[in-house]
Each structure stands twice: as C-alpha cells, then as structure tokens.
C-alpha cells in the first residue's frame, strides 16, 4: 500500500468541482487500503503541502489548483510551487496535477529535479458546467465527462496501473466523452466536445519516458512546448 497525498483547495466555482472530483479519488484510495492524507479546503495551504512532503513522505501526490506555466497554487491562490524556486521539494514523488498550463515549465522542472513522474496539462484545463449543479458538482451532466476523465485513470493508478496505463485511460475517457457528446443537439455540446479535445491534447506525463499526444494544439501552445532532454519521447497518435 502506498502513502497518497490529496491536495484540493475549495474557494470558488472551479475549485468546488476539482475538490469534489479529488474527493472521489480520496474515497477510492481509502477503499483500496492506501494511507491517505487529504489536505482539503482551508487546509490546502503551501505550508501544509511542504509539511506533508517532509513528514508524511507521499509516494503518490494528486493535487488540484490554479496553475500557470511556472506556478501551482492552493487555497485562495496562494503559491505552493514555482519553477526553479522550490520545485525540488517534489523529489522522489509521483504526481498528477489537475491544473492549467504547468505542463509547460513547472512539471518538467520538477521531473528534472528528480520527481519520478509528473503529469499535467500544457494548456488550460477547461470544462463546461451546468449552473443548476454548482452546489453538487458530481451530478453535473455537462461536467461529468471531465470528472470521469480525471477520476477513472487515477482509480486505476491507485489499483496498481502504470503511468502509461493512466495516460491511456485518460485519453480513452476524453475520447469516450467526445463520442457521447458529438451528436448531441444540446446547445452546450460543441463547447463540451471542444473542451474535451483541448484537455486531451494538452495532457502530458514527464518521467522516465515523456508521454504526450501527437501535437495538434494551436501555435500559441506549440511554441511554448518544452523540449525534453535526456528522455525518450513517446507520442501517442490520436486519430
């Protein structure tokens, strides 16, 4: 069994959803018998994250929060990690960050400083919400395909799957959502499909091998893509 750190701020609509999704991952982890430390809501502070890394020594970190290419933040957008400033603290861990953009700089920087595996997104992680469900995100039908793409692969990882399998599962879940919504006449369907494709195509895993989709992102992101050094690149072609 592994030590699993869950980090999930909650202070606005976006984090309400991420908080609920990672709550499901916590439930799965505990069900599998892992030793789980859940830093949630007002406890999702930088200080508590650092303390957990030093004293709880998690093997797997699953964290959610606002991000930018070089920054990951927690409750009330307080900065937790900044590339080349304190990202060496993640050394030895395997981590998935449900966060925007940090796959560009912060995630590879963590990996270069001996984080074993770091997964995230090179672009904004975006989704669609139904305003009637913001107080019960797990029931939101528009957000459901995004929830499934986040939670399902983490469940498999916690059950012993590899990061390659984690990646493949997340891609498969995005594709499943795209298929389900592609023919829908719901006025939100085109935005849901676009967001699922966008999130799918920005997924990246840095580790002993780097895994990412074949480049189909617009030039804004293409120009910002990190160049992997000293790693094998596996591009998963998505038709």
């Amino acid at each position, binding site marked *: 069994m592994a030590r699993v750190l869950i980090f999930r701020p909650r202070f606005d609509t976006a984090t309400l959803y991420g908080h609920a999704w990672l709550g499901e991952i916590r439930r799965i982890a505990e069900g599998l018998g892992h030793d789980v430390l859940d830093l949630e809501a007002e406890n999702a502070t930088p200080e508590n994250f650092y303390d957990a890394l030093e004293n709880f020594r998690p093997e797997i970190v699953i964290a959610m929060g606002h991000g930018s290419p070089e920054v990951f933040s927690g409750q009330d957008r307080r900065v937790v990690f900044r590339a080349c400033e304190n990202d060496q603290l993640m050394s030895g861990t395997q981590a998935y960050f449900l966060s925007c953009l940090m796959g560009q700089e912060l995630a590879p920087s963590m990996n270069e400083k001996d984080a074993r595996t770091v997964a995230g997104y090179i672009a904004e992680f975006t989704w669609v919400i139904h305003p009637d469900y913001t107080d019960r995100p797990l029931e939101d039908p528009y957000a459901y395909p995004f929830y499934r793409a986040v939670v399902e692969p983490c469940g498999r990882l916690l059950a012993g799957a590899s990061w390659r399998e984690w990646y493949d599962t997340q891609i498969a879940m995005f594709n499943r959502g795209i298929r389900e919504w592609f023919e829908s006449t719901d006025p939100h369907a085109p935005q849901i499909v676009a967001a699922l494709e966008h999130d799918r195509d920005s997924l990246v895993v840095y580790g002993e091998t780097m895994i990412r989709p074949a480049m189909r992102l617009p030039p*804004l992101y293409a120009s910002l893509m990190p160049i992997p050094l000293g790693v094998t690149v596996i591009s998963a072609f998505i038709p």
Partner: protein
Amino acid sequence: MAAIPITYEEAKRLTLEYLRSWMQQLPAAQRTRPVIVFDWRSWSIPEMISQVEMDTDVGRRYVYFYIGSLRRYVITG
C-alpha cells in the same frame, strides 16, 4: 487538409460569432449564468464575450482555444 491562415482579428470575429450564437440558443434567463471554466475560473458567455472584445489575456487565449478546436485555421498574426 492544410490549415487556412487567418489573422487574429478574423479569429476574434469568428470566436465572437460563435459565442453570440451559443448564447442565443439559451433561454434568456440562463444567458448570464456561468457555463465555462477557463483558466480555472468560471465565466458566463457575456463575460467571455467581454474578455474577447477587450483583448484580455484570457480573451486572447480563449480565441486560440476556440479556433484550435475548429481544426481548420491557423492564426498568423
């Protein structure tokens, strides 16, 4: 099929057309409620239209997001 080069202004116009069309499909009472989470913040469609019109950082990134989703165009300037 090769991507069609378009200017940012044209991309912005296409994006605004899409957002306005999307909004028109919704019942009036729902148009100002948040429906998009982008840049880890929730936005109503009128709010995102405003971001795009004002050329904010979020608005510009949304233009790239939308045009990228069409898989037909490349923004050249």
